[in-house]
């Protein structure tokens, strides 16, 4: 393995981890422009030079889809940015998306050797730079597609799992059709993740690149209703089906007052804003009803997205209500930090007990209870225990619940013999195969709520397994 970096390891270790350019917090709290501007070419060059080019890189093992990180960084060092993005694309067909929303700090960057004593290489920002470079200069070239195969595969859902599976199968020469229930492509990347973290333009470009592989995408098509899985395998002529309908059904706390006007699931709130353009009402027809004071319940990435979105569309006071402490929050550190910078108030160790309304059925406040941390529960996080008599009223006009989603039940309910597990997830084996022959599943539908990259890993694995299965018949 030749080392391409002219710097000695000791010199590389003196370089500081580069910080991305970011929009000023005060300004960005009122717009939907992207928060992080990523790296410029100078920062990219310095950051790439920090890589120690380990003989046995841990970063690749830490990447759910196994991107050859060392190799792409070496191409960055040679200023071959297109070569670098294509190197990533061999393992990951959505680099511009992953460079933005992947939790690198718990994956590739967590295991980076430099991180043991210093700070890890900013792999995510390098990935983003090369993907953006290619996009900006319009240098995308369609990857090689293997010889055309006769079989056609139906992919249900156009989120990260579905898009990835479709791309991988198409590269192998299979005919692929994606069926999407909404009117726009992307699943949670479209309706869930806000513009300021993942611009829709980026998603549109990545989608076009999937279509460039010959993948057909049909929107407004609800598998289970418009056609069933059995019909897809029968009269529609598909040889296999990959189910990737995500975990889009919101859960509610079950406390009094949830039917009041001004109470939203995070899914509804974010869908109104992200998919339907409600922040531009009345230019767009879909409204969103937001008070001056907003409380978002939860501590995950969806809660961060909802609370930061509410700030941007006019909430004077936007607070997050979470029953454990900051340390237990499941959200990415970067998102928590960005939320704090934007003036989001964190009400930690606090749990809602009921939502209060006026005679007109509108929210006027939320009764909360103080919590304390007890013994760890089955998830390993310390259990939140209510402090008796600690109730207080939080005055808000809008309450958004971001306490988790579960899989949409339509496909399961309309596919006889499809095995399901806890909370309605579709059961799969290590090959992503369901209990129905020829039907595979992955992403949040099989996981019940995880990350974009884990969904992509499932999609990629499913593509390989579907190909194996088709060839072994």
């Amino acid at each position, binding site marked *: 393995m030749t080392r391409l970096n002219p710097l000695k390891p000791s010199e590389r270790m003196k370089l500081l981890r580069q910080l991305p350019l970011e929009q000023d917090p005060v300004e960005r709290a009122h717009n939907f422009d992207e928060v992080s501007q990523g790296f410029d070419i100078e920062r990219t060059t310095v950051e790439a030079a920090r890589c120690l080019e380990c003989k046995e890189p841990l970063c690749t093992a830490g990447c759910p889809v196994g991107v050859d990180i060392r190799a792409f960084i070496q191409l960055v060092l040679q200023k071959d940015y297109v070569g670098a993005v294509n190197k990533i694309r061999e393992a990951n067909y959505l680099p511009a998306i992953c460079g933005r929303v992947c939790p690198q700090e718990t994956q590739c960057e967590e295991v980076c050797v430099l991180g043991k004593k210093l700070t890890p290489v900013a792999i995510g920002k390098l990935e983003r730079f090369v993907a953006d470079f290619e996009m900006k200069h319009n240098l995308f070239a369609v990857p090689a597609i293997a010889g055309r195969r006769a079989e056609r595969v139906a992919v249900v859902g156009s989120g990260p799992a579905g898009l990835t599976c479709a791309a991988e199968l198409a590269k192998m020469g299979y005919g692929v059709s994606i069926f999407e*229930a*909404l*009117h726009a492509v992307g699943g949670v990347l479209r*309706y869930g993740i806000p513009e300021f973290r993942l611009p829709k333009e980026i998603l549109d470009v990545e989608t076009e690149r999937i279509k460039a592989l010959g993948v057909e995408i049909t*929107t*407004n*098509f*609800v598998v289970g*209703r*418009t*056609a069933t899985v059995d019909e897809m395998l029968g009269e529609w002529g598909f040889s296999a089906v990959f189910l990737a309908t995500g975990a*889009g*059904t*919101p859960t*509610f706390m*079950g406390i009094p007052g*949830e*039917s009041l*006007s*001004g109470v*939203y*699931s995070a*899914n*509804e709130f974010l*869908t*109104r804003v992200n998919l*339907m*353009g409600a922040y531009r*009402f*009345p*230019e*767009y*027809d*879909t*409204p969103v*009803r937001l008070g001056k004071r907003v409380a978002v319940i939860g501590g995950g990435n969806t809660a961060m997205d909802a609370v930061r979105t509410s700030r941007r569309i006019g909430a004077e006071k936007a607070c997050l209500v979470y029953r454990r402490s900051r340390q237990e929050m499941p959200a990415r550190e970067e998102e928590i930090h960005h939320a704090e910078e934007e003036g989001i108030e964190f009400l930690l160790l606090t749990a809602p007990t009921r939502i209060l309304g006026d005679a*007109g*059925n509108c929210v006027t406040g939320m009764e909360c209870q103080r919590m304390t941390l007890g013994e760890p529960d089955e998830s390993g996080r310390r259990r939140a225990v209510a402090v008796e008599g600690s109730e207080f009223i939080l005055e808000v006009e809008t309450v958004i619940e971001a306490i988790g989603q579960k899989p*949409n*039940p*339509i496909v399961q309910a309309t596919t006889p013999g499809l095995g399901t597990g806890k909370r309605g997830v579709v059961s799969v084996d290590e090959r992503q195969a369901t209990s129905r022959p020829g039907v595979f599943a992955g992403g949040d539908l099989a996981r019940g709520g995880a990350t974009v990259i884990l969904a992509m890993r499932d999609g990629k694995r499913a593509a390989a397994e579907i190909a194996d299965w088709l060839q072994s018949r």
Partner: protein
Amino acid sequence: MYPIIHTSVLAPTITRLVVRAPYIARKRKAGNFVMVRVDDHGERIPLTLADSDPEGGTITLIIQAVGKTTRLLCSKNAGEFLLDVVGPLGTPTPIGLHGTVVCIGGGVGTAELYPIARALKEGGNTIRTIIGARSRDLVILEEEMRACSDDVFITTDDGSYGRKGFVTDQLRDFLAGPAPVHAVYAIGPLPMMKAVASVTRPSGIATLVSLNTIMVDGTGMCGGCRVTVGGQMRFACVDGPEFDAHQVDFDELMMRNRTYLEFERTADERLHRCRLTGEVRSA
């Protein structure tokens, strides 16, 4: 894009659109609905499928102009397009053999009732229909309902057609009469469905209603359509839209449906302003 094949005006504010949507046409069952988005800046609204022609690949929507989107829909002509139509959604009506079923349609709700009454009739039930409207010109689908009913009674608020009064007056007469009533289907404005539920509650006659709620996606993702049924939170889009009328918390739903009144007024006023220029446009 979904081409509009045919339009007809059924009443001063009620229009029938026949739209090409072959996949939906093939799968439609009584009780299903679609989500429709008229144009790129449009909202998604639920509309019940009044009919479909599986061979011809068309679906029938019957729309009352009450707000911006429905007004736009009613202004459409054959040859124009709807940007998005998705479905068929919702749990179809279970078509059981009940015996005598009273089918009650209030206003444009008659359009939602029609496919259900027809399916129930085909399922071997005796159908006694009550159509209610504010006045004669708002009575729709009378002929169609007659074709699938054993008898049809009409009530109008102002007495301009049929009996003067409400659908519940006619229903009470049925219940007091000698012929037994085994089930009731009521589709119309929420106050009407609530009134029907209270008429049948004492006798415990199975009563089903189809609920119109706030909806964004229509596939179980937003929870905007949540209703309390028998003390449980249910989603009208996937668990319904039909529910046991005796279990529905109508008052709560009526309050919830008022959430966006001000916004609806704003959107509608914008549409009107543009209408002054002579053309109906969305913005």
